[in-house]
């Protein structure tokens, strides 16, 4: 087992908001290539935990290690460039820009890093359309993002994450508000993404979790309650009490 080096580790990671320990000394390890789901009741600290990983929130204690490097003090935008992409829980696309421009913003950042000396508009178009097509939004490229349906905006959000070509893609409740048929497509999409990248998924919909996750972490009150394969979690007594409702 020692052969697989984890892509992401946290050591004693914690964050307090006043007296509240939102995340409380979490030790967590994520091997490269895994699709991992984090579940737990509302207020368990899931979003805060991934926010600590992607740098949107600064930790009060503990460390985050990505690809062998301590990134605890790295600002969020540098973590993104290091390969951690985050898609927002609340849809956060640029509503006044076209779908293509939304993705292009992600691509152009990426291309600037790759070449340093500017970027060709051909590469920008190619990469951008590629990301849109992956999520099935190719035909909507010229539509203004704010006019897209909610489900399509969620997909656009994912396309922006994909366009960053991340090593670790964090999806924060991606299926919230989607219809059943949209969720089905979404599962297929994440499966496809999972072949190339490591995926960390916060999700409430247990069907989605069971369909996608290779391993599951259950959080409660800022701590890890249980961790394991989907079947183990389903059988876990403590989890059933805390989360699945006994």
């Amino acid at each position, binding site marked *: 087992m020692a052969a697989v080096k984890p892509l992401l580790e946290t050591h004693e990671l914690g964050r307090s908001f006043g007296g509240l320990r939102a995340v409380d000394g979490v030790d967590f390890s994520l091997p490269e290539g895994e699709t991992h789901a984090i579940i737990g009741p509302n207020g368990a600290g899931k979003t805060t935990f991934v926010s600590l990983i992607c740098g949107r929130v600064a930790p009060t204690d503990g460390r985050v290690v990505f690809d062998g490097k301590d990134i605890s003090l790295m600002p969020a*935008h540098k973590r993104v460039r290091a390969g951690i992409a985050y898609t927002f829980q609340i849809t956060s696309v640029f509503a006044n820009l076209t779908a293509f421009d939304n993705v292009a913003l992600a691509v152009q950042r990426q291309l600037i890093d790759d070449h340093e000396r500017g970027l060709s508009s051909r590469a920008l178009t190619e990469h951008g359309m590629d990301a849109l097509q992956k999520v099935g939004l190719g035909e909507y490229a010229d539509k203004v993002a704010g006019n897209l349906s909610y489900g399509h905006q969620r997909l656009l959000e994912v396309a922006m994450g994909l366009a960053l070509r991340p090593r670790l893609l964090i999806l924060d409740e991606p299926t919230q508000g989607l219809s059943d048929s949209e969720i089905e497509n979404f599962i297929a999409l994440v499966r496809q993404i999972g072949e190339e990248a490591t995926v960390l998924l916060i999700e409430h919909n247990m069907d989605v979790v069971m369909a996608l996750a290779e391993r599951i972490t259950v959080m409660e009150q800022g701590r890890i309650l249980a961790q394991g394969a989907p079947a183990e979690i389903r059988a876990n007594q403590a989890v059933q009490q805390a989360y699945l409702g006994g």
Partner: protein
Amino acid sequence: MTRLTPSTKSIALHVGVVVLLLALNFLLPEYHRGVFARVLVLAVFAMGYNLAFGYTGLLSLGHAMFFAAGLYGAGLTIYHLEWSVWPAFGAGLAAGVVVALVVGFLALRTTGVAFMIVTLMFAQVFYLMTLYFTTYTRGEEGLVLPQEMRVLGFPGGVLDLSDPSTRYLVALSLFAIVLAAILFLVRAPYGRSLIAIRENEERMRMLGYDVFVNKLMAVVLSGLFCAASGAAYAVLFGYVGSGFAAIQYSILPLLWVLVGGAATTLGPLIGTLFMFYVIDTASSYTTAHLMVVGLVLIGVILFFPKGIIGTVRERWLPWLP
């Protein structure tokens, strides 16, 4: 029939506007040519302001200090050090960039209302400094640059900047250069990043952009254009005074940009021109001209809520940059 792409159309439009302004030099009566020369220089100020406010979403109430930095950078070096116009103009630009860099670095730690207040305070400090060093600046009374100093040297001759036609053409040249620069900027990936920062800063950060550095660059470029306007004003109109550093010169570019259309390339010109002529016309009929101006502004806001060009773009010409 080949259809023009939005890109070709917008470049053709901008070239057309500059050509039209060039023709006006030969068509306008003397008085109006003078007004237009002034408007062209101040439109550069408005364009610089628009880069920060319209495109990047930074509502500054202190841009008078960038204009005045250019004005004094050029004016003081000509008046006291007897520099010729080219290096003095360069000194004006440098002063603007330095002030923008320092003020931007400090003020951009804040956002929203706090940013407005901080920029306002810095501009007041700048204004009070122009009064404090009255030995050199002569404060409100200001300095009049001697006419023989206001000549632009070229290999093979000089241009007298106090000549109305030369003044108009130099003002137009500066305007055209800055217009082209802004058009290029907002169509380039960097321009798209600025607009995106305005729309959703947090999202940009999570796309890997260093938002602070991008905003600082926008403030510095904005300061550079405003300083260019100030420096040009000093050498073209030959007067440098504290009034240009006062609060109303921070409000005016905001007004011009709002009237013309924020985040449009031609809005600042239209807004500046419109406001100049509204005030000019109204004050020739009545001493209560500010009341007329107020009524006209209410009308503009009712019928052109996004500014003149902004509303034209929204309703009829979506390809306008």
